[in-house]
C-alpha cells in the first residue's frame, strides 16, 4: 500500500516503512539504543532525501527514547543535574548542527559529510565495542578476570577545573568535559539523525566515571531534550520534518521494541554488545563502500530554489 509523504513529496510503500521501523525497534529494544544510526541510513539507502531522513528520524528517536526515559524517571534512575548540564550543552550543539546542515546542503556537500561522519563514528565505536565485548566473551570462557576500571576511580579528566558536584552520580568533576561531550553529541545528533546514546553511554562510563545505574536513564533524558530541540530547529530551518513518515516509523518502532526487549533478556550482555558492534560496523562499511567505489552515475541534480 502506497502512502504519500507530504514533506518528502514522494510516495513510499507503507509496509516497507513499518518493517524498517519494527526491525530497528526490535534492535533498539534488545540493545537499549535509539536506533537512529540504523534508521537514517536505511531511509537514505531507500531513496528518501537525506534532508528529510535526518530531520524526521530526530522525531522518531525522540519517540523511542521517551518511553525509556519515562520508565527510568519513575524509578529515579537518572541524574537530573548531570542530564540538564548535558542537555543545555546538547541543545546548543543541536542548533549548531542544524545550521551546519543547512550550509552543507546549499554547498551540495551534505551527503558527503553525512557519509564520512557515519563511516568515522560507526567504525570507531563499532570497533571499540567489538573489541571490548569479544574480550569479555573470551575472559568469561577462560575464567580470567579482565581489569575493570570501576567508577569512582580518577583519570586525567578529573584534573580539569570548573568542578561541579553531581550528587546522584556521586561525582565531583569539571563541567568542561560534560559540556564538550553534551555539545558534540547534540551537534552530531542534529547533523546525522542519531540520538547518540551509543556514544554517550560509553563516554559517560569510561570518561566521566558515571555509575552504571544512572547512565542509561541520564543518557535517555539528554536525548529527549536534544532531539526535541533538533526536531523543532530542523522544522524551522529546513522544513524537512515529515510527520507522516515519522508516525509510520514510530508505530513500527514501538511494536518492534517490545519484542526486542524480550529477546534481549535471553542473551548475555557481552553477546548483545558484540552483535550490536557487528551491525554498527556493517552500516559503516556500507557507507564506505558507496564513497570509494566508482558511482554508476557521476552527475546529480538538486533543486536549490524557486525560479531564480
Amino acid at each position, binding site marked *: 500500500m502506497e502512502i504519500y509523504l*507530504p514533506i518528502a513529496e514522494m510516495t513510499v510503500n507503507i509496509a516497507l516503512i513499518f518493517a524498517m521501523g519494527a526491525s530497528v525497534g526490535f534492535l533498539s529494544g534488545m540493545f537499549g539504543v535509539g536506533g537512529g544510526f540504523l534508521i537514517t541510513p536505511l531511509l537514505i539507502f531507500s531513496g528518501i532525501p537525506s534532508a528529510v531522513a535526518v530531520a524526521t528520524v530526530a522525531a522518531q528517536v525522540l519517540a523511542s527514547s*521517551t518511553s525509556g526515559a519515562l520508565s527510568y524517571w519513575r524509578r529515579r534512575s537518572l541524574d537530573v543535574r548531570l542530564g540538564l548540564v548535558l542537555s543545555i550543552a546538547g541543545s546548543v550543539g543541536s542548533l549548531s548542527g542544524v545550521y551546519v546542515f543547512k550550509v552543507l546542503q546549499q554547498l551540495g556537500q551534505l551527503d558527503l559529510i553525512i557519509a564520512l561522519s557515519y563511516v568515522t563514528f560507526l567504525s570507531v565505536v563499532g570497533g571499540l565495542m567489538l573489541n571490548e565485548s569479544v574480550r569479555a566473551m573470551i575472559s568469561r570462557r577462560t575464567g580470567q578476570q579482565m581489569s575493570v576500571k570501576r567508577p569512582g576511580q580518577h583519570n586525567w579528566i578529573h584534573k580539569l577545573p570548573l568542578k561541579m558536584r553531581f550528587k546522584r552520580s556521586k561525582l565531583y568533576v569539571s563541567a568542561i568535559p560534560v559540556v564538550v561531550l553534551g555539545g558534540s553529541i547534540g551537534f552530531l545528533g542534529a547533523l546525522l539523525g542519531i540520538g547518540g546514546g551509543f556514544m554517550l553511554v560509553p563516554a559517560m562510563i569510561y570518561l566521566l566515571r558515571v555509575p552504571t545505574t544512572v547512565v542509561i536513564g541520564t543518557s535517555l533524558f539528554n536525548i529527549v531534550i536534544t532531539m526535541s530541540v533538533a526536531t523543532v530547529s530542523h522544522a524551522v530551518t529546513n522544513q524537512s520534518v515529515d510527520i507522516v513518515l515519522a508516525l509510520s516509523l514510530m508505530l513500527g518502532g514501538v511494536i518492534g521494541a517490545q519484542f526486542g526487549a524480550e529477546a534481549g533478556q535471553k542473551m548475555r550482555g557481552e553477546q548483545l554488545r558484540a552483535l550490536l558492534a557487528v551491525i554498527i560496523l556493517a552500516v559503516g562499511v556500507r557507507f564506505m563502500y558507496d564513497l570509494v567505489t566508482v558511482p554508476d552515475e557521476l552527475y546529480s541534480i538538486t533543486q536549490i530554489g524557486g525560479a531564480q
Partner: protein
Amino acid sequence: MRISLLAAILLVLFPASLSAEKLVATLSSDEVRISSNFSGTTISVFGIIQRDRQSVARGSPYDIAVVIEGPPRTLVTRKKERLFGIWLNAKSARFPGVPSYYQLLTTRDLDNFTTDITRARYRLGGENVLLSGGTGDAENENFKEAFVRLQNDRQLYDYRPGGVSFLAERAFNAEISVPAVVATGRYQVRILLFRDTALLDSTVSEIVVSKTGFEEFVTRNALERSFFYGLACVAVAIGVGWLGGVVFRRG
C-alpha cells in the same frame, strides 16, 4: 511578383493570422489534487483542427506537439570526481528558471516536422529549455546532456513521439501522464500545430497541481508555521513514546 513576395513575408511574420487552420483543444481536467494515496494520474487532451471554408486541403500531413511545463525552479547539476580516494561533488552547473517538469508528446518524431531553429524557438525537447543565464559549467555540453538525462531518469522530463494520435482526419488526442513526484504549482500546457515545419496555430492552457486535505494542511503548516509545526511534531513524538510505554508496560 512583388505582391506574392509581400504575401510570403507576411506569412512568415504572422503565420497564425493568415493561416486557414485554427486549433481548438480541451483537457479532461485542469487540476490534479494530491491526496494520501496519490500515485500519479493521467489527463487527456482532445483537440480538433478547424479549417475555414476557403482553404484547400493540401497534401502534407498535420503534426501536433503537446508540451507540458511545470513551475520554474533553479536546478544544480553536480559532477563527482575522485579526491583522496573518495568520490565527491566537485564541479557544478546552475540552471535558473528551468521547468521542474517537462513532458513532450508528438504525433511523430520531432525530426520529421521541426528544425533545430523551430525546436529552440518553441522549446521543444528537454535540451531546449536550458535558457542562457546558467552559471558555473552551464555552457558545458556534458552538463547539459547530463541534466536532460537525469531528469529523464527521474521521470521529470519525458519525450514520447507517437504520444499524440489522430482519431479522425482533423481530430486528435493525447494522454498526459502526471507522475507521483510532481511539484505543486501551475503547469502550462501548450499545443502546437505544424505542417511542413511551419507553425500554423497554438493554444495554451493551464493545469494546477495542489495538495488537498491532510497533506495540504501538513505542508502549509510546515512551511508557514514551521515553529508550531515543529512543536507539534515533538508533542506527537513524546505522546507516542509515552503511549507506547503505557500500552506495553509489563509491571
